[in-house]
């Protein structure tokens, strides 16, 4: 077990290095931060001085090695746009993004799994058809459009929920949370629904098709033949066996949720990392982009590891290390 975790962590090192190299190489194409920093009026001498100050006149690999050295010391540098340490900025924005992403993921799971089970069990009921139709909308509408529609209905027309921002937040150490104030919770609803809707429909459809599959298998028939109540057959036997793919997808989708949060955060002016990243791109703020991409890569590596560990918990075949002797 420990050896497994260690080997996965070792494998992560080349992944992280590659990501840093690729993202760093891309910065040559995002534009010139110097022009933006200098504004409308400057002389050529001022421009050259700034280029030198920022080290942008150095060869690519010199810049990259210097960057890596600093990162290893935990120093991501100063944001060009905001003039503040990148690490501070990311730590400030991280709670907002994580609260939003986890709420969205929870929403997707808590609503998506029961809906999937229901539509799997009662394939032809009108409610199932309704769920499936709604889920089609969830899958096919782009995130920003859903966000704008929700704002239009719940903020502009009904006036129930705020259209932007995070509401009042409470600081707990360096972590800020919006979950402890009424305005913070109200502000979280629309972005979380927007962000979670796609994942929710995905999970629902996945659970549904897995349920349909599993319900056809022999051991379910035997379970029914033994006279077990439906509740135990459906949730104890059937649902449990649909969970492996659901966990994989949900885990990987959590990474996607954090990445997709860029769009949702922009629509709702949610002060998270995605908004920070988008604004960094618009301003060619290289230190922030580099730190963000590395952080997202790290996040995916960690999520993958956790997903692998969850397999152990859910799938007894992996736990006992035995090869495919299926079922019980």
């Amino acid at each position, binding site marked *: 077990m420990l050896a497994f975790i260690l080997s996965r962590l070792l494998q992560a090192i080349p992944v992280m290095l590659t990501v840093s190299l690729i993202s760093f190489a891309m910065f040559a194409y995002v*534009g010139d931060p110097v022009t*933006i*920093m200098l504004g409308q009026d400057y*002389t050529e001498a001022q421009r050259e001085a700034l280029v030198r*100050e920022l080290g942008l006149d150095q060869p690519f690999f010199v810049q990259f090695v210097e960057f890596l050295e600093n990162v290893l010391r935990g120093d991501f540098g100063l944001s060009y746009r905001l003039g503040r*340490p990148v690490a501070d900025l990311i730590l400030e924005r991280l709670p907002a993004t994580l609260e939003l992403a986890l709420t969205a993921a929870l929403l997707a799971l808590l609503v998506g799994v029961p809906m999937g089970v229901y539509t799997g069990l009662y394939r032809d009921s009108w409610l199932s058809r309704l769920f499936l139709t709604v889920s089609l909308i969830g899958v096919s509408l782009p995130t920003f459009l859903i966000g704008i529609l929700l704002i239009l209905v719940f*903020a502009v027309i009904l006036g129930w929920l705020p259209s*932007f921002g995070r509401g009042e937040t409470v600081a707990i150490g360096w972590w800020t949370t919006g979950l402890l104030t009424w305005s913070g919770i109200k502000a979280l609803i629309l972005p979380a629904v927007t962000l979670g809707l796609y994942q929710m429909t995905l999970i629902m459809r996945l659970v549904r098709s897995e349920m349909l599959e599993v319900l056809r298998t022999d051991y379910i028939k035997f379970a029914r033949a033994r006279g077990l109540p439906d509740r135990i057959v459906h949730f104890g036997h059937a649902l449990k066996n649909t969970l492996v793919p659901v966990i994989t997808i949900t885990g990987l989708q959590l990474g996607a949720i954090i990445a997709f949060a860029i769009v949702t955060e922009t629509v709702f002016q949610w*002060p998270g990392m995605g908004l*920070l990243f988008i604004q960094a791109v618009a301003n060619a703020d290289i230190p922030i982009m580099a730190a963000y991409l590395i952080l997202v890569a790290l996040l995916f590596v960690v999520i993958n590891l956790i997903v692998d560990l969850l397999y152990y918990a859910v799938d007894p075949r992996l736990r006992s290390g035995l090869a495919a002797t299926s079922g019980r």
Partner: protein
Amino acid sequence: MRTRALAAAAALALAVPYTSAEARTLRWSAAGDPNTMDPHSQNLGTVTKILNQIYEPLILRTRDLGLEPGLATAWRQLEPTRWRFELRRGVKFHNGNDFTADDVVFSIERALAPTSNFGIFVDTVQSAVKVDDFTVDVVTKIPDPILPNKLASVYIMDREWSEANNVRQPQNTRAREETHTVRNTNGTGPFRLTIREPDVRTVMVRNDQWWGWNVPGNDSNITEIVYRPIASDATRVAALLSGEVDFVLDPPLQDLERLKRAPNISVLEGPEVRTLFFAMDVKRDELLYSNVKGRNPFKDLRVRQALYHAIDIEAIRTRVMRGQAIVTGTLFPPQVNGYTKEWDKRLPFDPARARALLAEAGFPQGFEVTLDCPNNRYINDEQICQAVAAMWTRVGVNTRLNAMPLAQFFPKIQREDTSIYLLGWGVPTLDALYSIQSLLATKDGRPGNGIWNYGNYSNPRMDALTETIKNESDPEKRNAAIAEAMRLYHEDVPHIPLHHQMIPWAMRANITIPHMANNQPYMRWARVN
């Protein structure tokens, strides 16, 4: 019943801040957040729109962008290179420190520092000299008749506070630590910064000690300003419609009609001091991005005139800009000193004439060219370029459009890696010299000359006029030189002018904020009714 009770309760909760005499909050939004609070680091509208509420220059702008006493009560030119400023007495900074001549000398020197972005406003300044505690002389390298106009953009900081917080120089980007001024201020202005959370909110409260509250006209009743940026256009409009914000500085054009129809929303429309034009490479012997080999069509006046005649400017004004543009034939709008109506006339839209001119110039079949254009800098910039590219193509100049974000666009034109490009030019000094010197003077290495002249237009007469405008202190002779330069501009067609931008502001109907052509709201005049 229950929902109605809830709604009533909510309405009551919302209404409280307005009915109370103590707290009148103005909730303000725009797309961009200021990236610093340092008064001399970033000469950008997004920064100065906040700093203008907190800091003050020696000289303030009036509602029509004229000059009026600020921290200086009087100023005069003692000799051609020496201006004297009498300072206001009894003014205090927000931290309680007294305002004196030392602060003025310090601030002007700070604006002159290499990391300052406000150098253009002190470009002629040799030194600032304290005469006594409330008198300062500014000595210039050359006679500078428009120095007061420029100093109306230089904020005054507290020397003692700056030295205590190690911010003698504007923020340095290479520094490894955050500069104190990035999030902290100490001005003398009508509002005081209390909360600064970048990209989230900036809160300012009324400075009851401000000297200017006694001056007639400064009749703001606002006690608190909460600025929250909203980057997404649609969300910003929604927040205004739903009553979550009171004032949007930059409503998107496509939503203007809807906002005008909405009850409780008023839209103020007015011109901005910014002019859009196309500039061309008129120096190279062969264009970089064209199929014409061995010669540069833009060197031929007739080709430049042809492209000018080919533009249906009314279509751009009404369709692309939805009426939010003032068509022009000159380089700067009427608010700028030196403007003459006489030279603000366009070559008429005349495609037949355009084809004839092209044929005369030796291009009866036209030619190909690439137009470089930003897509996130000016109002509807990419759409303007699309429309114009089609118009040029129609008269035979096959135009490929290369639209890109400003982060790529500006470096490209600054490398002079372009054949023809769109530029929009604002005039913060409100004097024609700023435009003529930066855009039309030959890039001869003299400070400021031709620094944005990437098409390398060069005419010795224009250069001579530029020097006259720089040095002449008789306003009449100086304005005659500016008019002459604009006549030459009209004749030479170094640019193809388009329009001055209009800048609509949108606000709740109970708010009054005077519209300003520099796109800067001054909250000392704002009221919540």
